[in-house]
């Protein structure tokens, strides 16, 4: 008893004295239940304003991010020392137990100047513990000194100016823990979405991961998705890359929308499966009165852009994770459908 008291006292003192040096707490990371505070994991500096990453976190960037109401995002990965992730050609990087994927969501009053007055809304953690991946949402307090576990999510009013200068005033929905699972589900497991080799393979990133000791080796062969908004890339691959990151986590054989038979993974080759002249399955009014998911040459008659453009529950796709339509994404998919030869 006294022994533990002494240990605890030492620990508390050391924390109080030197917050910057407290490292990742694997006991907290590997626990069955989420920690109450984001800083409890030891991945960020305590009692500071904003998200101050410790040196154990590595920032990374995806070629294509998932759209979330024009929020600015930052991504970090923590891999326990001495362990390494492995990457295959096309799959999600296989991260070792103890890995934490961290994603911050924030805004600035004017997203054309994203650094001025920037504030954090939420931080989502994907933690790989012995039982598999867990998905936990944390919501930042007003003072921006801590993010608190929010199992039922939260609704927040956001006022900002979008990157193209449009005034936005909307309800941002922090997902609840189950909604995190809905998108991250494969069969009955939870897996990450963004960090697939094909979506990480730019700016020397995979090699950096190897250099930092996080990744065993670069895969021999990696397919590369184009940036969906790189106008120098082919329209077809840009559209497929966009659907891959924004839709395919549910719209795949093992995903939450498997029963629709609409599968939008980068590697899907069946034109019916990606929606060309495919009838809606369980869409109801989400079909918008249209006959096909994709009516070649006719985006205005196609269910896919119709649902991407809608913000109404029961119609809007994705069902979760956005309150606003991604107009640039709708344009991309509409252009892609326009250039398909009509039958």
């Amino acid at each position, binding site marked *: 008893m006294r022994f533990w008291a002494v240990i605890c006292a030492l620990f508390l003192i050391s924390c109080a004295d030197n917050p910057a040096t407290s490292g990742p707490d694997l006991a907290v990371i590997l626990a069955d239940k989420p920690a109450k505070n984001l800083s409890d994991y030891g991945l960020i500096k305590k009692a500071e304003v904003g998200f101050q990453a410790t040196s154990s976190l590595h920032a990374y960037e995806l070629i294509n991010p998932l759209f979330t109401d024009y929020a600015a995002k930052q991504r970090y990965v923590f891999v326990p020392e001495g362990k390494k992730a492995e990457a295959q050609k096309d799959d999600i990087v296989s991260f070792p137990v103890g890995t934490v994927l961290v994603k911050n969501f924030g805004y600035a009053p004017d997203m054309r100047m994203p650094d001025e007055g920037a504030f954090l809304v939420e931080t989502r953690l994907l933690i790989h513990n012995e039982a598999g991946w867990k998905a936990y949402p944390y919501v930042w307090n007003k003072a921006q000194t801590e993010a608190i576990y929010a199992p039922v*999510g939260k609704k927040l009013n956001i006022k900002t100016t979008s990157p193209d200068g449009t005034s936005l005033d909307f309800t941002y929905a922090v997902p609840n823990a189950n909604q995190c699972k*809905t998108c991250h589900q494969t069969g009955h497991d939870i897996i990450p979405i963004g960090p697939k080799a094909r979506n990480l393979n730019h700016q020397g990133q995979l090699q950096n991961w190897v250099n930092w000791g996080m990744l065993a080796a670069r895969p021999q062969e990696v397919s590369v998705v184009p940036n969906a908004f790189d106008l120098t890339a082919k329209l077809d691959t840009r559209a497929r890359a966009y659907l891959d990151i924004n839709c395919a986590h549910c719209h795949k054989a093992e995903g939450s929308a498997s029963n629709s038979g609409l599968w939008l993974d980068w590697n899907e080759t069946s034109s019916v499966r990606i929606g060309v002249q495919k009838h809606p*399955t*369980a869409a*109801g*009014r989400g*079909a918008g*009165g249209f006959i096909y998911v994709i009516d070649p040459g006719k985006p205005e008659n196609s269910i896919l852009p119709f649902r991407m453009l809608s913000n109404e*529950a029961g119609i809007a796709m994705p069902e979760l994770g956005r309150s606003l339509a991604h107009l640039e994404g709708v344009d991309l998919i509409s252009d892609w459908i326009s250039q398909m030869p009509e039958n």
Partner: protein
Amino acid sequence: MKKIVLLAGAALLVLGACSNEEMVAGFDGPKIEVAAGENFAVDLQTALIEAGVGTRIELPAGTYKLVDGLSLDVAGVTLIGAGEGETILDFAGQQGAGEGLLVTSNDVVLQDFTIRDTAGDGIKSKGADGIIYRNVTVEWTGEPDADNGAYGVYPVESTNVLVDGVTVRGASDAGIYVGQSKNIIVRNSLAEYNVAGIEIENSSFADVYDNTTKNNTGGILVFDLPNLPVMGGHSTRIYNNDVYDNNTPNFAPPGNIVASVPSGTGVMIMANENVHIFNNKFANNRTVQVIVNAYINEFDDETYNPLPRNISIYDNEYSGGGEDPQGLLGEFAKAFGGRMTAIVWDGVTKWSGEESVDINLAINEADNIGFLSLGVGSYPVVEANLKPSPFRPGGKAGTAPSPVKLPQEQ
């Protein structure tokens, strides 16, 4: 017993702030009572997330407004209200999610509550084996409306599904819809003012009995559709159901397959195999009491069989019906004095380019029960090729599928 106490204790720590936690007499597990009041929605969703395996979550009587979809991913949870029409989860004004309640865990029981006016589907359970829907109402209030959600009760990609004593009203697709599943019982349920009352789709081993389907566009549908992960639906028994007055105009949004069901349809069997329809009471379905037909659209799926096969219809009671046939059947009926027979088969025996096959349609009804084959031959319909015939095709009824047994009832 110790384990249960620990579970309850853990749940108490998490939920103590918002709910009452206690052991229930006669119930061997942890229980959460969600309290009525302002925090109901948050408390309920918290309970659904943080409940331990096997928890019983109780909802008090009252009407509760919810603006976001609920979801449950914990096995063995019983979500139980104070009764249909007593505990009402009101989703008018729902802002998020594609359904009112989504269940993705096994061995869940949903019982004794009403879900109303969801933006999308009512209750969806996906990959949720062993589920029980018991004495639950899902309804859209007001007149039937294309803006209502598609499905009321919507188990999909699941094994061992029990729908018992459920009521669904107003779904713009199917009231009770079981899709891409196997081992299914739908019984003692009421489906009214939906486009389809009860629909079994791309599923196998289903028993549909002791239900009432009335005032839908179509009463009971058994379909198999192409380009879905689970296909080849077969072995369904439809018996002891009351199927009447399914004359509501079709209000499904176009594009959905049920939008092609003519108003006034009792039972429709499309492209499915080994379906037995017996001991039902059909009355006053204005287009047709029972219709058997092939898939009507073009498709691109080599694994798909668009024809109905081994369909048996026997020992049913028929009254009225067929007096005001709608849609394509209405057009056909003009050549037959404007009325349609009790039983109709489209007469499709082959898909374009393929050989004609014997689909084995067996009809064993009294001689005075009218039958018509439209003699379409193959789709698309070519008027000049139609060979209508009043003679029953003379198929032989095979053995009916064995009664479905569900582990949750053993």
